[in-house]
């Protein structure tokens, strides 16, 4: 996206109140330049990042399409730092024409030291726009910083895939959910798969078949176990399955869930050939002989359906473009504005499947 005419302010050894004052002046200057410049007021995004990886995070934030936060506050953690440096910018995608308005967005990068993190709220609080939701995202850890921001944030943006220990990731998500609305990118990666499973069983004659599901296999990128577990957790929570921990079986994790009519075999199969995060495919079988597979493919999901009792085999493409990592982050920012009441039960069920 092309941005035009960024307004810029920088300072060394500064304070939150000086940053806030500078931002007000920048906004005022921008408005004086053209009354059509209008600040977006949707949500604040507070990112806590390691300084050495801040460029990568900036690239990810640039790739979210239209789903920008109104005010992004990046707390860039630098070892050894004891004072605050800051850069504030106001950007707009275009210049307003006569009678038009052009949205502006603010970005504040504050260089902080590890010693600041336990009380990061005292730095961030003066910088957030009040009366709109504040989202906290700490892709490089820093739990003490997240903890200090609980008071002023409403939403925690996480990616359970980031944590090498999936069980810890799920426990942390549950802990955050005690006081914050959690938007988990690992969960958002399951959206197309959930939509398609829901659609498959939506025709009224097929709805009773949900009770006959006898096995589910989820194929996933090796690091994306959390997404696969959340998908199984979703099925378990929606269909009232009682799950036991999954156990290693070769490369896979396997186990079972107890459903009303029969047990359901559950398998998580890592797909080593998959480079990008997320799910590669899934297969659902029913006791009545139906088998549905969905796999990533060009132009959408490649679907295969068979019913061995009736000798039926079909395949087709379920249309849809890949959202990419930028799209997932953009969806996460949008999801921060809504409440997803299905995630927590799915998370809870997923937690029972890991030791």
């Amino acid at each position, binding site marked *: 996206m092309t941005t035009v005419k960024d307004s810029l302010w920088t300072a060394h050894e500064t304070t939150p109140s000086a940053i806030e004052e500078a931002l007000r002046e920048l906004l005022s200057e921008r408005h004086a330049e053209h009354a059509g410049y209008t600040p977006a007021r949707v949500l604040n995004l507070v990112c806590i990042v390691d300084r050495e990886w801040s460029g990568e995070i900036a690239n990810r934030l640039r790739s979210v399409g*239209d789903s920008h936060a109104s005010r992004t506050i990046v707390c860039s953690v630098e070892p050894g730092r004891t004072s605050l440096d800051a850069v504030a910018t106001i950007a707009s995608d275009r210049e307003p024409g006569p009678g038009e308005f052009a949205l502006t967005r603010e970005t504040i990068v504050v260089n902080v030291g590890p010693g600041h993190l336990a009380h990061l709220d005292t730095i961030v609080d003066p910088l957030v726009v009040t009366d709109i939701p504040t989202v906290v995202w700490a892709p490089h850890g820093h739990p003490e910083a997240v903890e200090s921001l609980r008071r002023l944030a409403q939403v925690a943006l996480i990616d359970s895939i980031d944590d090498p220990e999936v069980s810890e990731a799920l426990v942390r998500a549950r802990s955050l959910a005690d006081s914050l609305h959690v938007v988990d990118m690992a969960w958002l990666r399951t959206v197309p798969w959930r939509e398609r499973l829901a*659609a498959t069983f939506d025709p009224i004659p097929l*709805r009773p078949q949900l009770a006959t599901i006898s096995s589910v296999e989820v194929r996933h990128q090796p690091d994306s176990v959390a997404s696969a577990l959340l998908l199984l957790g979703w099925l378990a929570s929606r269909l009232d399955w009682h799950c036991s921990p999954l156990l290693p079986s070769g490369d896979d994790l396997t186990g079972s869930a107890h459903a009303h009519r029969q047990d359901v075999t559950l398998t998580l199969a890592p797909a080593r050939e998959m480079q990008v995060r997320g799910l590669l495919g899934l297969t659902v079988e029913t006791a009545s002989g139906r088998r549905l597979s969905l796999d990533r493919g060009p132009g959408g999901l490649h679907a295969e359906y068979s019913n061995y009792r009736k000798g039926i085999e079909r395949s087709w493409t379920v249309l849809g473009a890949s959202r990419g990592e930028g799209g997932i982050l953009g969806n996460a920012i949008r999801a921060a504005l809504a409440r997803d009441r299905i995630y927590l039960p799915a998370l809870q069920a997923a937690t029972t499947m890991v030791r």
Partner: protein
Amino acid sequence: MAVTTEPENPLTAGLERLPVHPTALVVFGATGDLAKRKLLPAIYNLAHEGALPERFYLVGVSRGELTHEEYRELAVEAITSFSRRPPDPDVLEHLLEDIRYVSGSFDEDRVYSSLAAILGEFDGKAGQPLNRAFYLSTAPAFFPVIVGLLGAHGLQHSEGTDTEVRVIIEKPFGTTLGEAQELNRKVLSVFDERQVFRIDHYLGKETVQNVLAFRFANGMFEPWWNRNYIDNVQITAAEDLGIGTRAGYYDSAGALRDLIQNHMLQLLTLLCMEPPVAFSADEVRDEKVKVLHAVHAPTLDDVDDLSVRAQYGPGVVAGEGVRGYLEEDGVPADSNTETYAALRLSVDNWRWAGVPFYLRTGKRLARKLTEIAITLKPVPHLAFRENADGVRPNQLILTMQPNEGVSLSLVAKVPGTRMTMAPVNMEFLYGTAFISQSPEAYERLIMDAMRGDATLFTRNDEVEAQWHICDPIVAKWEATPGPLPQYGSGGQGPAEAERLLLPGDHWRAI
């Protein structure tokens, strides 16, 4: 008596996009401008977002002699040119890989036989009977022809299956009350009303739907949303452009039929309706129809007092000289078609009695603008009599385009030692408060039609009630010879519009 209930699908809870039954969509007029500019790009964008039904098939029907492959190429070109996002080649390829084209005149039986065969083939391919949606994007004269032949070939229902067949009909739905009634009779002799989706694409716009949210999700407006507090209402749909290359259509339609009879009366209904019991198709439309029935339809004798028409003359727009309507290519030099129409209507019910509703639309006006302006009555007593120059009645402005939002004009004290008043605006712009992901109106409407949700479509009694209001005006204008008053392009419209205003009222500047 045993009561059977359909089993629920617990997997749909919390999904942003609910499943839609596998569908075959047939577009009549598949090579026309609307199909190329709006429908095909909308279908592509739905595919891109994964919103189309899991099994989806597309059939084009038109007079042009094209093969399936040639139509696929036409669709690729249309989508590439007009989609709101660059198409993903893989999605595009899969969307169009099974596309079919039926060539022929809409009154030929063989067209419908071919169509039936293709739809049967698609059912077989999907392994299940598909829902069918017939989109009539043709000249209105073909609507009854197509509907009749769909019925004659048994395509209006899907015997022995639980699938749905729907027909989506583009505007204009008739050009007079008589035509609309006749078309309704024809359509409803073949389809049930629940199968019929009459498009008014304005209703698919987010900002139009927001009128309902604004009124019925905020408690603060309802106490003064009535004749006791509201002085007058102005609904404006102004365009800065002329007719462009649409002389053929526009000269036979005119501003009244093009915008007032449908879009602007729809805005009026949303503004005036009582709160529906639920946001369901019939609950909402029942309330809208009540408003239309309450609108005083002008008699032939009333028309001159309650309406104004005019044509744009030459003028200057954006610093450049432009031609008048009668000099436009394709427009007869003696045309009496109005490019500007304004009405003063009244809604004769308990809530709105005595409040004038001014509707105006025109081409080649000062700028592009669609808004509803609600002017409140002045305060009953003003204590600041000596410094009251800046005091104006409050106005609430709902802007649909170009800057979607809500603005409330207030009166405030000018900073200083004296008690001087000045109007100020409290503004809310939708774009500043949401992360914008608004679908195009056609995307929303196509999905709603495939899903069977008729809330944003016009019902038979609604369209007839709209015509009941406009028919006398059409009749009077057609019977009255020209020439029509002219207004300068790039301006505020004809001076004649002033005579519609009741004493003390003023047109808002466009």
